[in-house]
């Protein structure tokens, strides 16, 4: 079965090279992930693959047809979930599917037959007559997925399908994608959620500035690019100059906190000289002897290592520092390869 073959794809806007020679192909029945920070070229890659943007160089074959020359035909074998919902606000859920099916040249009778099954699949059974503006964000996303299936495509393109969804809605989308993969469909997924990529993708590529900087299965990519274990070290709240560590890691951290550090702040000692030590200072002065690589961002030190026991013993004896020990994941690789600077 023909899926998508991309060879030497390059595209510039003015003097900015957005894509710099991408080569990849989708294997039938796999989920292939394109990962990258904002502006890495993911969406441009999809647009080129669909024939909506003409590349400056390179060849593309979609569903066995040359693109952009025969893109119109090729797209009839593809289903697309765009980054932004663009359902028709004037129509009901069922009308959205009917009208979209017509764009594929499908007779109304055939689409009417499919509509109940598609809505059922999207968890929207009984919502055929619902107006789009009465649907939640998750429902709209699922209806968009159903719309992408109206032509029973062999290949699905999903551009950040779960951005902006709550965890329940995300999990439902993932479940449906797994079902589609089980049916033998080939999926091209762009995302910047690394857990999503690890969960769904058979293979993936990490992109930055229009180039692939890593490619393989999630496990291969992790094994090839990063140490297997990570210890995140934080200053104790109140003990570190910048205050408590931020973000969702705080909860995990508390669970990982060793028993001897669960005492309230006044009993803390910090260094022998009585001053508290920040994670950044600790990383600068002491981390190198335990970890292969240390990255400090704000008041958190990320220690990447192959053998964690010595560091954990050291930290267990330290007051004023808390830590989280975990296996390395795709997000670590992503941050290592694309850097921690913001991309706006």
């Amino acid at each position: 079965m023909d899926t998508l073959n991309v060879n030497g794809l390059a595209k510039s806007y003015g003097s900015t090279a957005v894509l710099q020679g991408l080569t990849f192909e989708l294997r039938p029945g796999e989920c292939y992930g394109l990962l990258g920070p904002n502006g890495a070229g993911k969406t441009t890659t999809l647009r080129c693959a669909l024939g909506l943007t003409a590349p400056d160089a390179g060849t593309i074959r979609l569903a066995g047809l040359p693109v952009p020359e025969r893109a119109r035909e090729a797209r009839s074998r593809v289903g697309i979930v765009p980054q932004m919902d663009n359902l028709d606000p004037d129509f009901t859920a069922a009308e959205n599917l009917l009208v979209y099916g017509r764009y594929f040249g499908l007779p109304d009778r055939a689409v009417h037959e499919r509509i109940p099954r598609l809505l059922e699949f999207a968890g929207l059974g009984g919502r055929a007559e619902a107006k789009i503006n009465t649907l939640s964000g998750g429902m709209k996303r699922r209806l968009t997925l159903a719309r992408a299936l109206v032509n029973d495509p062999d290949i699905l393109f999903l551009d950040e399908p779960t951005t902006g969804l709550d965890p329940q809605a995300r999990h439902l989308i993932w479940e449906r994608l797994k079902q589609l993969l089980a049916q033998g469909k080939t999926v091209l997924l762009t995302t910047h959620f690394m857990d999503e990529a690890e969960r769904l993708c058979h293979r993936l590529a990490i992109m930055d500035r229009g180039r692939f900087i890593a490619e393989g299965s999630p496990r291969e990519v992790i094994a090839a690019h990063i140490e297997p274990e990570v210890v995140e070290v934080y200053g104790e709240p109140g003990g570190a100059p910048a205050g408590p560590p931020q973000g969702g890691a705080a909860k995990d951290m508390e669970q990982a906190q060793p028993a001897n550090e669960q005492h309230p702040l006044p009993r803390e000692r910090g260094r022998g000289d009585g001053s508290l030590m920040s994670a950044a200072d600790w990383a600068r002065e002491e981390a190198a002897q335990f970890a292969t690589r240390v990255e400090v961002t704000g008041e958190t030190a990320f220690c990447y290592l192959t053998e964690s026991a010595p560091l954990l013993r050291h930290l267990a004896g330290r007051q004023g520092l808390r830590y989280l020990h975990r296996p390395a994941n795709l997000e670590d690789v992503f941050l290592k390869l694309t850097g921690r600077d913001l991309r706006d």
Partner: protein
Amino acid sequence: MNAFRPPSPSLRFIPVWRRNFLVWRKLAIPSVLGNLADPMIYMLGLGYGLGALLPEVGGVSYLAFLAAGTVCFSTMNAATFEALYSAFSRMQVQKTWEAILNAPVALDDLVLAELVWAASKASLSGAAILAVVAALGLVSSPLALWALPVVFLAGLAFAALGLIVTALAPSYDFFMYYFTLIVTPMTLISGVFFPVEQLPAAFQALSSLLPLSHAVKLARPLLLGEAPPAAALHIAVLAGYAVTAFWLALGLARRRLLK
């Protein structure tokens, strides 16, 4: 690829046309009333009010003179509004075009669908006015039915011109320039409200280049029961506007959306 290469649309424009038609059907009654009320108020207000002061204009009562002008004027307005505001909403705001282009529909099909749809909607509006005009006894013979294809052709020309503006527009505010600088002056010098012959020679020459005056020159004799003189010329000018402006609008849309 050159954005201004010749258009190569396919029959896939039909499902896009049907999409717009389905939306319109849901709001058909207010839409038709809205398209009808405004021009009728102008026509009856000016026709009876101003008409009472005038013995006759162009050999007929002012109201009868105004009828053809109103049909063309409202066709132009309906086509222009659809090609500007509605098409821009679908292209830029609702991202309907983006969704359609992900299906096996090319931009050429899509822009053609918008063109034909705007002309269709304008024809509905023109036909509704024609019906009212006929009901008022202002139509002399069945020859007036030929005004319907004229209205459709004029609708194509004005829709195509409007789509150029839409393809260039950064936001809705941009459309005000088009109305103020082009549509309103064109209306005043195209023989809608008074004969072009009243104008200074320079304006008459300018008027002869404008699509609205060619539409009026076709519609007015037809409503008065006569075959329009030089019909082929007027038809050719309107068709020329439609084809050239469509080509240009498509080129600009390609440059904007397929980059």
